[in-house]
């Protein structure tokens, strides 16, 4: 047990694989030394936002202290250095997703802005009344509401691919929704509420067989396993910085170059233009066409450091560690009286949603918080999914690279005290 973390009840030797030393990784995250209500913080809410390693915090401080100016402006040295660091971040994100070129990476404020960008620009370019966009019952509100706004403007039709009661995505039912009016498939890669991994390769093959492009929400995939947009042959891919141990205020949209260049701008302003007169303005090519105004410069530098950090630990090692934790947590929580797991799909990322017979998720959240345990409670910005499962809310434990079996045990014991209170 490291002094920095002060984590309770960690049996020695049970937390690490040969290639991955979780205690060493924990020492990189200053916040994990904090106490909550006099107990060591047990942070099981990484699906909402991950904590930041020292390497990310330092990279951002270092940028502000030594290398900061606006980008793509002026000839002075600081602007050039900062522009190099910023565009280096674009290269880094391209490598992270195995994109063919950094020109295929558009920076946004967050994933939600990337969805709104695609809905607005793809909508204006390619959608009209009666055209169909296919989403699924697993979607986060960020991949529902922007399409509803497009529906109001353009009269498109939203089709919703179903899941089964365990949370499995149903491929045959999905395929049956694809028709001559389907113009886009927009799906989550991993469900934020249930952890379901959608069989996206099959989805993409089915859609491409009908010349339908595919947009994937990678917010809950990128923190947990390597994503290769070229191997998937996906057309658009969105993720957010703060869930991959990077800062808030930065999201990214991958798009195949020819598809991006066929879309009109999202917002107008500086940086995205080729030339401006009062009569006519012409626009730059992607990605700059979609980046109006001063971008989140230092956030890109922080995201770049986060990607380096993940790469140094090894995405396969992180995936193996989290997979072991998730399996252990599902077995351990299922033994707590009254607990029912919600979302038991065949393939899952390290997200464990659950409800209890006699305790509402809000009461669970309050009680385990007093044991230092942070879990998410509520509808997880996926109200249609909650309605599908006939639940108002769930409690959700989500695991990051820094979590341990000892922390799962702390959660389980706190849930046992919930059981005692509510009977």
């Amino acid at each position, binding site marked *: 047990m490291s002094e920095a973390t002060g984590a309770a009840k960690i049996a020695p030797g049970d937390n690490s694989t040969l290639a991955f030393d979780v205690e060493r990784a924990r020492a990189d995250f200053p916040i994990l030394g904090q106490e909550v209500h006099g107990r060591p913080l047990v942070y099981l809410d990484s699906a909402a936002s991950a904590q930041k390693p020292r390497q990310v915090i330092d990279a951002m401080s270092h940028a502000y202290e030594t290398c900061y100016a606006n980008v793509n402006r002026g000839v002075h040295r600081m602007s050039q250095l900062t522009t190099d660091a910023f565009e280096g971040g674009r290269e880094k994100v391209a490598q992270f997703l195995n994109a063919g070129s950094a020109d295929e990476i558009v920076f946004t404020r967050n994933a939600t802005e990337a969805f709104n960008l695609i809905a607005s620009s793809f909508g204006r370019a390619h959608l009209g009344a009666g055209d169909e966009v296919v989403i699924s019952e697993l979607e986060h509100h960020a991949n529902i509401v922007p399409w509803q706004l497009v529906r109001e403007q353009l009269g498109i039709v939203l089709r919703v691919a179903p899941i089964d009661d365990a949370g499995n995505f149903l491929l045959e039912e999905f395929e049956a929704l694809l028709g001559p009016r389907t113009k886009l498939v927009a799906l989550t890669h991993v469900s934020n509420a249930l952890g379901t991994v959608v069989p996206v390769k099959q989805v993409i093959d089915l859609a491409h067989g009908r010349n339908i492009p595919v947009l994937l929400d990678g917010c809950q995939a990128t923190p947990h396993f390597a994503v290769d947009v070229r191997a998937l042959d996906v057309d658009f891919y969105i993720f957010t910085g703060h869930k991959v141990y990077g800062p808030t205020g930065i999201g990214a949209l991958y798009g195949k170059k020819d598809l991006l260049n066929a879309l009109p701008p999202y917002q107008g302003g500086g940086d995205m233009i080729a030339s401006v007169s009062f009569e006519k303005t012409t626009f730059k090519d992607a990605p700059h066409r979609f980046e109006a105004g001063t971008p989140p410069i230092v956030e890109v530098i922080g995201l770049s450091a986060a990607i380096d950090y993940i790469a140094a630990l090894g995405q396969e090692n992180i995936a193996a560690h989290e997979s072991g934790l998730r399996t252990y947590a599902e077995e351990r929580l299922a033994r707590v009286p009254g607990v029912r797991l919600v979302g038991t799909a065949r393939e899952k990322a390290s997200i464990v949603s659950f409800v209890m017979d006699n305790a509402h998720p809000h009461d669970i959240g309050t009680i385990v918080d*007093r044991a230092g345990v942070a879990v998410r409670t509520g509808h997880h910005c996926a109200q249609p999914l909650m309605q599908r499962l006939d639940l108002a809310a769930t409690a959700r434990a989500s695991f990051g690279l820094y979590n341990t079996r000892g922390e799962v045990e702390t959660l389980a014991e706190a849930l046992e005290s919930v059981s005692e209170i*509510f009977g």
Partner: protein
Amino acid sequence: MDDLRELYQEVILEHVKNPRNKRTPADANRHAHGHNPICGDAVEVHLKINGQGVIEDVAFEGRGCAISVASASLMTEELMGKTEAQAKALFETFQEMCTKDDAKISKDIDEDALDRMRVLAGVRAFPMRVKCATLAWHTMSTAMAQKDEATTEQDDIGA
């Protein structure tokens, strides 16, 4: 754990298991729908108020956490037979109790009623949960302000 024991005391857990007046009266003449968008909890409050401004019946429906269900149940017991003015004073006092250590207590409220409402005052130690305790009361207040037979949607109710 002392804060937790105060929050989840026996009286509250008993109201959760056996909520009072959880029904929809056929002859209610004021209704409101309250919703906490953060957790998705929802409550309907039904009032029957006569020509003299007396609450002849009060009931609720909905699903939510222990705090919101217990609060709705306790509220219906306190409001039965009260005038609209008395109900308003109870609401204001309850809100004070849930948010302040030195709550201003309306002098028109008897000690027994104060003691009954005080079982929920432990929510003060849990600022994220105050909305759970006050949701039913806010919804009742909205219902009371309606004309006969009106139904209203009130989202994003402030605590």
